[in-house]
């Protein structure tokens, strides 16, 4: 591993330049003194200094292009380079959102077809691509539920049910949309507890937000019954599409009875996460809710005739909750997702779900010999271990996660879902080979042995990284957010 890197300000040397402007051949125009800064401490470096600095920094990064990234719930699958290439085609990359619609027909056609692809996968008749991230798609979908209840005159429906295994964004979206949240318990098989659910369904019920498979990586065995109970009480059912990677081409949420859902294009459809993002949180919904979708939506504005092809453009749904993002959403991300779908085709997308599930079960079966598995049944695309060994009482999930970094793996998600106290949530995705999965199993088994034989190794980990174990407690207790 490279040594640590100084900041670019520490590398600065007074007077050093990366670029010299040619002398001016136009009359100078002096800025008024009031607009001039006396002090602007920009770093001063040569071009080669800058290139080396950022190249060294990039080598300290760990990404999907370095290795496996089994971060449960995040679906860190490999992002194919052809999708990046497609998004960078100048005909897409250099479009202006306000240029005449006739000049961007190809781009709008991609949006239109991507809507149809997501409708086909979800089973819903309508789709909006504009939400800028998963959490925003969720927020938009819950706003749609609120708007439809208002139009039905049922404003007394204020309770949104949220399973105790849910992502934290679910209650956040609900509260921001004016609902009160009530947690629903998980039963011992990892399903929504039907008795608890029934006891919380009444005339104040607005709906339920369900992630299926849930964050334990388990398909809810009673999902149809859960949805029936909520519908019978007059509530609507929101589907958090975070875990759609397990269902692609196999289960259509609309057929299970969901009313509205979002997709995370950056999970299921291999577009980049985080710094490589941004994300996209497309919403799909039923006929009853489609008038409330956020817009604009790509549509055929003028049907084709014998002489001319159809004219594609945008429209706002009649009772739309509004725009969640300027212009047409994260177009570049949608191009990547579209490319991914076209590359794989329907058969390929189904195989994504099959291999993601197979890989997760392969890891789970191998690791449950060494790690407690609180919900022991066939998992979907991910599973959750509970790092509690009677013969290694000082070892927690965090220690295992940190030690994995020494074995050159990105740690899995830890301490989520909250219902598993020492949770390690592992999602290999479909893009890892059997050899990589075997290497991961080997590392995990070695760590389980180290936990008993040499626990200090785990407490001190990581030791192979430029910085060792961070003091997370001190960082949280003594917040220093500005100099």
């Amino acid at each position: 591993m490279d040594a640590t890197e100084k900041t670019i300000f520490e590398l600065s040397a007074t007077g050093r330049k990366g670029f010299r402007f040619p002398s001016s051949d136009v009359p100078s125009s002096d800025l008024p003194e009031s607009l001039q800064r006396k002090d602007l401490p920009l770093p001063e470096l040569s071009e080669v200094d800058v290139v080396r600095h950022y190249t060294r920094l990039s080598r300290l990064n760990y990404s999907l292009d370095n290795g496996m990234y089994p971060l449960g719930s995040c679906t860190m699958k490999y992002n194919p380079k052809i999708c990046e290439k497609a998004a960078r085609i100048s005909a897409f990359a250099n479009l202006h959102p306000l240029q005449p619609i006739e000049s961007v027909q190809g781009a709008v056609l991609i949006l239109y077809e991507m809507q149809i692809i997501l409708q086909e996968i979800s089973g819903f008749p309508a789709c909006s691509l504009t939400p800028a991230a998963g959490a925003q798609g969720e927020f938009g979908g819950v706003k749609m539920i609120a708007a439809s209840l208002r139009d039905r005159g049922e404003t007394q429906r204020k309770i949104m049910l949220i399973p105790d295994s849910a992502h934290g964004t679910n209650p956040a979206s609900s509260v921001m949309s004016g609902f009160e949240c009530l947690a629903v318990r998980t039963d011992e098989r990892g399903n929504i507890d039907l008795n608890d659910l029934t006891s919380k369904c009444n005339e104040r019920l607005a709906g339920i937000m369900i992630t299926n498979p849930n964050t334990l990586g388990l398909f809810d065995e009673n999902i149809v019954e859960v949805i029936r109970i909520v519908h019978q009480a007059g509530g609507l059912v929101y589907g958090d599409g975070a875990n759609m990677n397990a269902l692609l081409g196999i289960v259509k949420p609309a057929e299970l009875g969901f009313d509205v859902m979002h997709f995370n294009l950056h999970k299921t459809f291999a577009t980049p996460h985080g710094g490589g993002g941004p994300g996209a949180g497309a919403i799909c919904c039923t006929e009853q809710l489609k008038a409330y979708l956020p817009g604009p939506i790509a549509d055929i504005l003028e049907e084709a005739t014998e002489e001319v092809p159809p004219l594609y453009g945008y429209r706002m749904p009649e009772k739309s909750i509004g725009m969640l993002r300027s212009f047409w959403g994260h177009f570049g991300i949608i191009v990547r997702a579209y490319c991914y779908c076209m590359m794989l085709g329907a058969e390929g997308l189904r195989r994504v779900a099959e291999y993601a599930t197979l890989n997760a079960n392969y890891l789970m079966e191998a690791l449950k010999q060494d790690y407690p598995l609180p919900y022991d049944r066939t998992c979907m695309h991910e599973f959750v271990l509970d790092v509690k060994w009677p013969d290694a009482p000082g070892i927690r999930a965090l220690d295992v996660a940190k030690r994995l970094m020494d074995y050159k793996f990105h740690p899995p998600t830890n301490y989520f879902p909250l219902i598993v106290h020492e949770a390690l949530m592992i999602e290999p995705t479909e893009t890892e080979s059997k050899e990589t999965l075997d290497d991961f199993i080997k590392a995990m088994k070695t760590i389980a042995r180290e936990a008993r034989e040499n626990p200090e190794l785990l407490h001190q980990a990581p030791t192979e990284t430029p910085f060792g174990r961070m003091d997370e407690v001190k960082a949280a207790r003594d917040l220093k957010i500005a100099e």
Partner: protein
Amino acid sequence: MNIHPNYFYSKNDEWVSVEGNKATIGISDYAQDSLSDIVFVEISVSVGDSLAAEDNIGTIESVKAASDIYTPVAGTVSEINNKVVDSPELLNRDPFGEAWLIKLSSDTGFDTSHLMDADAYRKYCEDRG
């Protein structure tokens, strides 16, 4: 795992200790151990507030998770432990003693019939592993 023999416990792992018309409330040793290192305590009620059982009284944040805290019994807030707000680590060290959260008073005493005693709570914790 420590369990104070004379306290009552809620399913959310809060404890209450009752002495006549005064009650003291905190979180159990099991709770602090599950949360691991506690880094932030917020008490959202003030002295004089009248609380029903199960009302939210604040939030505790650890490096793992944030948890809402509820009062197991009804009463009027008579005292708040600012020491634990300033030094959240007290909760990890002494959850049944120095790190109490709030004190309540009530002219009519406190109803603890819905809460667990120490034996029942021990079993409740063991069942959860």
